[in-house]
C-alpha cells in the first residue's frame, strides 16, 4: 500500500513535468511550471484520500492497518475514535499550542503521540512516519472547513 502511494505520486509528478526537458536535471523538484490538468489534480486528490482512508482505519484501531504500517497504537484495546468520534474534540486547526498534559508547546503530531503513549498505552511513532502523516491527513480532512485558529485553548 505504501509503495503504491509513492508510485502514484511519481506518476502525477511526471505528468506535470512533461515538456520541461531543459530543466530535466531538476525535474523532481520542479513543480507547477505548467498548468495542472484535471487528471493531475485527480491524481493528487486520490493520493490524499488514500492517506485519509488509511488514517481513518488507524484512528479507529483497525488491526490490519496497524500491521500494514508496522505500528502498535494501543495495547489497551482503546482506539483514538473512542474519545474522538468523527475526529471531534481534537481541534487540529488550533495547533500548535501549549498543551497542558505535556506541559509543553506542542504540535498536533506531538499530541497524537501523547494519546498513543498515555491513554492507549501503545508504542509512540516517529513524528514524520507514514502512519503519522496518514493520521494527520484523516484528522485534518475530518475537520475540513474549521477556521484556522492556532494557539487557541
Amino acid at each position, binding site marked *: 500500500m505504501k509503495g503504491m502511494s509513492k508510485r502514484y505520486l511519481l506518476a502525477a509528478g511526471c505528468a506535470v513535468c512533461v515538456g520541461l526537458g531543459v530543466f530535466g536535471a531538476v525535474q523532481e523538484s520542479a513543480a507547477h511550471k505548467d498548468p495542472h490538468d484535471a487528471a493531475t489534480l485527480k491524481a493528487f486528490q486520490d493520493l490524499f484520500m488514500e492517506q485519509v482512508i488509511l488514517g481513518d482505519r488507524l484512528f479507529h484501531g483497525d488491526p490490519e492497518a496497524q500491521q500494514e504500517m508496522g505500528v502498535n497504537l494501543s495495547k489497551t*484495546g482503546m482506539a483514538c*475514535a473512542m474519545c474522538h468520534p468523527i*475526529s*471531534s*474534540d481534537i481541534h487540529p486547526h488550533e495547533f500548535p499550542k501549549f498543551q497542558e498534559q505535556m506541559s509543553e508547546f506542542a504540535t498536533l503530531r506531538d499530541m497524537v503521540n501523547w494519546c498513543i503513549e498515555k491513554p492507549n498505552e501503545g508504542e509512540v511513532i516517529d513524528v514524520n512516519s507514514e502512519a503519522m502523516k496518514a493520521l494527520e491527513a484523516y484528522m485534518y480532512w475530518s475537520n475540513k472547513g474549521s477556521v484556522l485558529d492556532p494557539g487557541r485553548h
Partner: protein
Amino acid sequence: MQKKQPHDNGGSRIEISRRTFLHNTLLTGGAVAGAGLFQTFTTMNVAHAAAGSFSFAWVSDTHLYPKTLNTRFIEKAGRAFKEIEEMGSSFDFMIFGGDLAQKGDPVELQLGVDMLAEITSVKKHFIPGEHDWYLDMGEAWNRHFGESPWMFDHKGVRIIGLNTVGFAPDYWTAKGMSPKERMGHMEALDGSQAGPWSGLGREQMQWLSTALSDWPKNEPVIIFSHTPLYEVYPGWNFWVRDWRQVHEVLAPYGNVTNIHGHVHQPLYHETDNARFIGQLATSWPWPYPPTGVPALTRPMIRVDPGDIFDGVGWGTFDVTDAGVENEYKMWRKEVFAVAQHDSGTGDNGNQILTPRIADRDWTGN
C-alpha cells in the same frame, strides 16, 4: 531547547473557573440540599412528582473488556459498584442502564455478571446497551439479566425499562456480516454501517402504549432507556429514531421523566410534559456532539484525559414530594463548566466535522 511555559498564575484562575455550577437555577425552584456543603455532590432538581419518597441509583456504560486486555474499565466499574453497595440501604433499587460489555463478548458479559453479583445490598434492574447485544442478538444478555421491556409500580410511580437497542433495521444480512463483524460495526459510535439502530420498534411502541393505558394521566412515570427518547445527534444514535411516536404515546401523561445512558455525559432536555436526563458512564466520557445539545443542558467541564477517573461516575435520584433530584457522582470536584472555554460544548463550537469515510463502502470480505 527550553520548553516554553505559560506564566504561573498561582492557580487562581483555575479556582475561579472550576467552581461547581448548580443546574436548578434553570429549572423549577426548590432547595438543593447539601450541594453547597459537599462539592462532590452535584445536584439538580428536575421535576415535581407527587409520590412517596424514595431513592435509586443509576449506573451504566461500564464497557468491560476482558481482564487480559485492560483493567482500567474494570477498576472504574468496580469503584462505582462498591460505592453503590456501601450506600445500598439508602436506595430502593438500582438500574444498570446498558453497555456492560464492550464487544458483547461472553467473557466480558460473564465478568459483568460476576462484578454485579458483588452488589447484594440493593435490588437490581437491567436494560441492555448496544454493546451487549449485537454479537449474539441479545441471547446472553437476556439469559443473564432477563428480557426487556419491563414495568413495575413503586410508591406511586410507574417505572418502565425499555430496550432501545435490540431492534435495529437489519444492516448485516445483505452484506453477509459475521456476528463479529456485525458487532464491530456497532461498536464504533461514529460508524457508517449500523445506521439508525436505536429505536423502540413497532411492537415495543404498542407495548409502551398498553403499559401506560391504565395509569392516571397526572401521576409520575419514570422511563429508563439506554439511548435518549428524543433527538440529540442521530449520527451517534444519541436518539431513538422513532422518538416522535414515543412523544405521541407519552403526550397524555403530565409528569414523565426519562433517564438514559449511552451519551456518557450530562444532558438535560424538557418538553411540555417530560424531562430527559443523560447520565455519566463509568468507563470514559464522550465529547459533546457538534450539534443538537439541548439549550437546557449545563455542559460538564472538560476532563483531564490523563486521569482515568475523570469525567466518569454514576448517579443517584431522590424522588420526593418536592421533585426528583439527580446527583452526578462524578469522581472530581467540579462537574459542570462555568466558563465557556472550560465546557465540552462551548469549546467545540469552532469545529466543522465530516463523518468518517473508511467504512462507508464496506461490502464484506
